């Protein structure tokens, strides 16, 4: 037990390091991007003098390291600063959208994880059967379509007939139920996108174990195939499964820009793209860090879980 805490502590520290590296990378990258906030704000209509004036206002004339340092110190004091483009506090800008993103991710996960695990287990159980091959082929087809294309097809089938709305309009009045209804298509799209990976991993992880002696033992104890897989194989296959799930959850949080655009879903991805194209570095940084946190924490969670679920690691001799 105590082992876990030390692990968590170490991993959190490493996470910090990761976050730091990321902020540096992102800042460097955005610095290298041609053009700057002033240009992007004024667009084609920019003239040299107006640009100069705006740069002055935005403090873009500071040297890059100085700006990075200011930003960093700010963050370390828990202040993510203001969005330069809208000069609103970033917390306000990001707040609701973060909520939306997380909600959608959870929604999709709630659909995808059970489905893919079930399919994976069944595929392993009836390996090389028609079911196995078919579900495999379908899953592969699903992931080989670009996200926006999957989305369009769903719109064609489910939105134009008016069964589900093709856009998410959230107001104060929106109840969770409405939300679930409105966000169904985006969630479904994401589900289709991530299911295949998790399913294949689950299947592989289980089949890996079927050759091991304790599985044969279970069969020789007269256990039914279902019980053999569920009770004897799955518990030992958890680690890889947990990891792939975590990886996909991270994707659901960080990688859904396209879906957000298609379904007009106000999430972080769109905000980040806008911030990048506008060179609104503080916002880019903030979101990048949020994503990174999600990623780090999910990985940590995965490791903790696979430790807890593994007696060898949990109960030392």
């Amino acid at each position, binding site marked *: 037990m105590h082992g876990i805490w030390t692990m968590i502590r170490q991993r959190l520290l490493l996470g910090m390091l990761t976050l730091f590296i990321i902020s540096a990378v992102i800042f460097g990258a955005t610095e290298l991007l041609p053009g700057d906030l002033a240009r992007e704000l004024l667009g084609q209509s920019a003239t040299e003098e107006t640009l100069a004036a705006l740069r002055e206002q935005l403090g873009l004339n500071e040297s890059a390291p100085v700006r990075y340092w200011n930003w960093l110190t700010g963050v370390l004091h828990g202040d993510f600063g203001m969005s330069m483009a809208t000069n609103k506090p970033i917390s306000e800008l990001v707040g609701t959208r973060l909520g939306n993103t997380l909600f959608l991710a959870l929604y999709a996960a709630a659909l995808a994880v059970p489905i893919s695990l079930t399919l994976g287990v069944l595929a392993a159980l009836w390996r090389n059967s028609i079911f196995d091959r078919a579900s495999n082929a379908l899953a592969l087809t699903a992931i080989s379509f670009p996200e926006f294309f999957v989305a369009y097809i769903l719109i064609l089938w489910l939105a134009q007939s008016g069964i589900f709305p093709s856009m998410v309009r959230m107001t104060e009045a929106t109840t969770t139920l409405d939300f679930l209804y409105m966000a169904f298509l985006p969630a479904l799209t994401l589900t289709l996108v991530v299911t295949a990976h998790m399913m294949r991993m689950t299947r592989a992880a289980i089949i890996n174990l079927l*050759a091991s002696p304790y599985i044969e033992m279970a069969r*020789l*104890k*007269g*256990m039914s195939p279902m019980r053999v897989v569920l009770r004897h194989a799955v*518990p030992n296959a958890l680690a890889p499964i947990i990891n792939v799930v975590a990886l996909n959850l991270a994707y659901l949080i960080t990688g859904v820009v396209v879906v957000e655009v298609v379904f007009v879903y106000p999430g972080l991805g769109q905000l980040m793209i806008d911030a990048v194209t506008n060179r609104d570095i503080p916002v880019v940084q903030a979101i990048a860090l949020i994503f990174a946190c999600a990623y780090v924490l999910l990985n940590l969670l995965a490791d903790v879980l696979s430790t807890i*679920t593994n007696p*060898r690691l949990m*109960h030392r001799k």
Partner: protein
Amino acid sequence: MEEDPLLTITDLRIEGRSGELWHPIVKGVNLSLRRGEVLGLIGESGAGKSTLGLAAMGFARDGCRIAGGSIDFDGINLRTAPEAQRRSLRGKRIAYVAQSAAASFNPAHKLIDQYCECPVVHGVMPREQAEADAFELYRRMRLPNPEAIGFRYPHQVSGGQLQRAMTAMAMACRPDLIIFDEPTTALDVTTQIEVLAAIRDIVRQFGTAAIYITHDLAVVAQMADRIKVLLRGHEVEEADTRSMLAAPREAYTKSLWAVRSFARAERPPATGTPVVSVRNVTAGYGAVDVLKDVSFDIHHRRTVAVVGESGSGKSTTARVITGLLPPRKGEVLFNGKVLPPNFKVRSREELRQCQMIYQMADTALNPKLRLRELIGRPAEMYLGLKGKALDSRIRDLLALIELEPDTFIDRLPSELSGGQKQRIGIARALAAEPQLIICDEVTSALDQIVQEGILKLLDRLQAELNLAYMFITHDLATVKSIADEVVVMQRGVVVERGPKAALFAEPKEEYTNLLLSSVPEMDPDWLNRLLAARAGQ
């Protein structure tokens, strides 16, 4: 005698698949077993022992199929019976005890849960009762604190205890028949005794019929009423234990019997500077010292056997010598010259001089490399052989280990038998033309006949290439056969050392004595006598 047999197998043929081809594994074997009778199945690996044992449960491993013959268990034809019915028999009326309990217990569940699975799922008894019953059986199996041990996970329990727990588990539904598949092979001699005794008693107490599969004659002699000898899927002969031991009919059986006779004369005491001398080495991982002040020498053309049970520090000593584990205190001398403690800073020459042969040939040979490269690499590296020269050297080495070069040179390890793999391990060590070879349990994973082959080979090579061997083993039979000197280790300390003959004749140390006495003998009464003797003390 007259009552109809519990299990009758007639003309059983089992095939295994490689690709689309089916090749026979068991070629028409008959077998019949009465209630409460224990039948010993012996033969080398690949003889079809396990396959036959599993077939007695109406079970064929993946990639195997029962091609012909009939299996009749208490009036039920296991070949024609529907899977569901067969399943209902397994674990309930026919139970199985696997070779490696460590691997066959599910690491994810507590022992007790795995125990209760059978009775509960088969509806023999409810969970509470099953647990109570488990404690009882654990007690009978002489497991330490039987009420508690069930609530441990497999990895928290020692091998011997696991093996007993598994036997208890097999007993859970009080089956009519238990298949024991080499239950003690993986155990130290001393533990083996306990397990054997426990198994034998419980089988007798419940009058359970059993098929006891092993390659160790001495063991089967203690356990079985009748012995059936198998060779490559054929039955060689069958007879009741005593007559079989007394007068084996077939040549093959005789050869099996002969195995243990190999022993070579001890060479005269060594002189001059030892090839290796280990001086007061203390070493360990982290805080704990695994080795405490260990010292011994190995001379040219001599074999020093390091014996002891698992955890006694044998292998660690080897790691110190090879430089994988730099010692905390003490040093290792090679031809009188101090070796750098860490292999990373040793010169190629120093590395070359000391080669290692591992216990598990499977993990010691890169499965993706062909023999040509496996053997050729050291020669190429150390001796700078190229092209023709290298090729002929590889062939010589293959010849040296008695493998036909042309057939083997381009094979993968997976295409070899256990013994052949081990020979490759030897060849690889020889390729470097070293002075010292460390053999870490090189024979313990092999059949006795194969073992003998390897031992003889090693002996021959030692004579030809005047090598020094450090021979790590827990099997005293092996020691008897090839050692010149013996170093007995226990918990990281050298308990006793000296010339083989002397040490075997009158062991000074209690522990040495225990080890020696625990080596099974062919005499069917050996176990009883031993137990009696020990009880007497």
